[in-house]
């Protein structure tokens, strides 16, 4: 673990009264390697290391605190600072002002359709993936397991029109939340990115959540920036955290967008969704 690798640093710092560049240089290198191994984006790592260096170098070693531990604590605090202090809830419209609208977006296979069903409470799900074979059936099957309604319409109408009609159906049906599932898309596909912007414009969501696979590598920063610049997101859902990936993508997503990860997926079943806890993620990334 990173803590074990830091033993060298701890030994160097013992008996000193100040943390200097000389005595933590090696440790910072080790932290950089470890975070890259955890799939944190290179630019995000370098920014974090710079922030840690600035805080640590020159700081007095606190009496009674192991200097190595103090150093690790600084890293951990900088990490959690980026990831936000508390769990961020789903947006909620005031009662009587129409349904809360949540739009889900992301790359292919990230877990959007599964997440749509997981988020469902008193909800209308709207099936706007008109491309993937059996996408609508998948959402209907998931919804059927938890007794939630799905709005569907002829695929030929296209995603934007289906979203529009779904919203109308939600308002008329007095649903308090609408969750819009969309097709996976690559950020360099201009036509599909435009479709997503049009779906958003037609439905004015209260939350636009980017769904990201926790195993994503360096690309997590690029895809977040692209979705945020092109469409605008209010938060993210990180999926497949039941695996053994360290999940550095979490740091990249939050750092690049400035928006919080609101939920994490921890399994394939519909009940496997939890709120995001920054400290837990920080420990996991640091390994």
């Amino acid at each position: 673990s990173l803590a074990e690798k830091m033993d060298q640093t701890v030994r160097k710092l013992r008996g000193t009264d100040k943390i200097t560049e000389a005595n933590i240089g090696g440790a910072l290198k080790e932290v950089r390697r470890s975070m890259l191994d955890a799939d944190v984006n290179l630019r995000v790592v370098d920014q974090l290391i710079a922030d840690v260096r600035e805080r640590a170098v020159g700081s007095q070693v606190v009496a009674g605190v192991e200097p190595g531990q103090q150093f690790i604590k600084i890293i951990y605090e900088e990490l959690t600072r980026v990831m936000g202090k508390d769990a961020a809830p789903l947006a909620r419209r005031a009662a009587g002002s129409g349904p809360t609208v949540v739009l889900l977006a992301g790359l292919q296979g990230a877990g959007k359709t599964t997440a749509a069903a997981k988020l469902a409470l008193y909800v209308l799900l709207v099936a706007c993936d008109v491309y993937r074979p059996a996408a609508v059936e998948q959402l209907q099957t998931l919804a059927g397991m938890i007794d939630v309604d799905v709005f569907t319409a002829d695929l030929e109408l296209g995603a934007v029109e289906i979203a529009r009609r779904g919203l109308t159906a939600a308002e008329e049906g007095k649903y308090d939340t609408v969750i819009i599932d969309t097709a996976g898309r690559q950020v360099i596909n201009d036509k599909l990115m435009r479709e997503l912007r049009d779906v958003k414009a037609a439905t004015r969501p209260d939350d636009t959540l980017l769904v990201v696979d926790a195993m994503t590598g360096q690309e997590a920063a690029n895809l977040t920036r692209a979705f945020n610049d092109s469409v605008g997101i209010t938060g993210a859902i990180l999926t497949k955290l039941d695996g053994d990936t360290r999940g550095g993508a979490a740091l990249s997503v939050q750092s690049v967008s400035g928006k919080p990860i609101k939920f994490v997926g921890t399994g394939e079943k519909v009940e496997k969704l939890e709120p995001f806890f920054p400290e837990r993620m920080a420990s996991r990334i640091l390994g």
Partner: protein
Amino acid sequence: LGGGSKDLNATLAQLEEVLITSDLGVDTVDSVLADLRADAKAARLTSREDITTCLKDSLVRILLRRGGQDGVADLAVRAKGEGPTVVVVIGANGMGKTTTIGKLATRYRREGKTVLLAACDTFRAAAVAQLQTWGERADAAVVVPKTGQKSAAGVCYDAMAQGVRDDVDVVIVDTSGRLHTNINLMGELKKIVGVVGKFRDGSGPDEVLLVVDASIGRNAVTQARTWSDEVGVSGLVVTKLDGTARAGFVVSVVDELGLPVKLIGVGESVDDLRDFDPVLFVEGLVG
């Protein structure tokens, strides 16, 4: 930095950034750049162009040497009269297995082969319907679970029996997404592979293809290693290379495990399947 001209160091620093952001991983990058430094000094290369070309050549050499005969890693074909060629497709959730099978089935059909698909994902919502749609597109028969049949190995058995009885050329087995940390699902996969062996005096499938999404980070290497140790993997399929992700994990997987990349996915349509080309791949990696 180990000695060398200022130009060499500057170029190596730039290349380090390119390779890390392409998901090669720090350890692989360190070893590749150490060799590059030695090669560049020995050949007295100083221009960024020459050093970059040297890097690309050595990466292609790694992929060729470790990745299969002449880098053209063909799919195995069973001899005539020995029953169907069997390809089992595995991988984490959402990587592109089912879609790849649809494309592969089409390729075989265009070669004049008869194809049978085994829908062994008995868990996920609409997984069977999705594969059936691909079967129609590819003009391949699909064996689906019987009503209430939950055993993936049982469906595989039915498919093998039909494939042998109808003297089909190729049987392709679709499996549910599974994380390599899930012991139960690992056991299920071993059962599926064991069933194939029952129809051919104990020898396993002709291909066990591990499908990995190009945007996955270092976890791809752990996946490849674990599945390779547990069930044996004959080759990799890298999907979603039509996006911005460069799949640098391929270098580690090929170099450390000697697994060849057999196919790549470059889109969601039936024609978006290509043979792996190490030269083109390295071009995309290094730019």
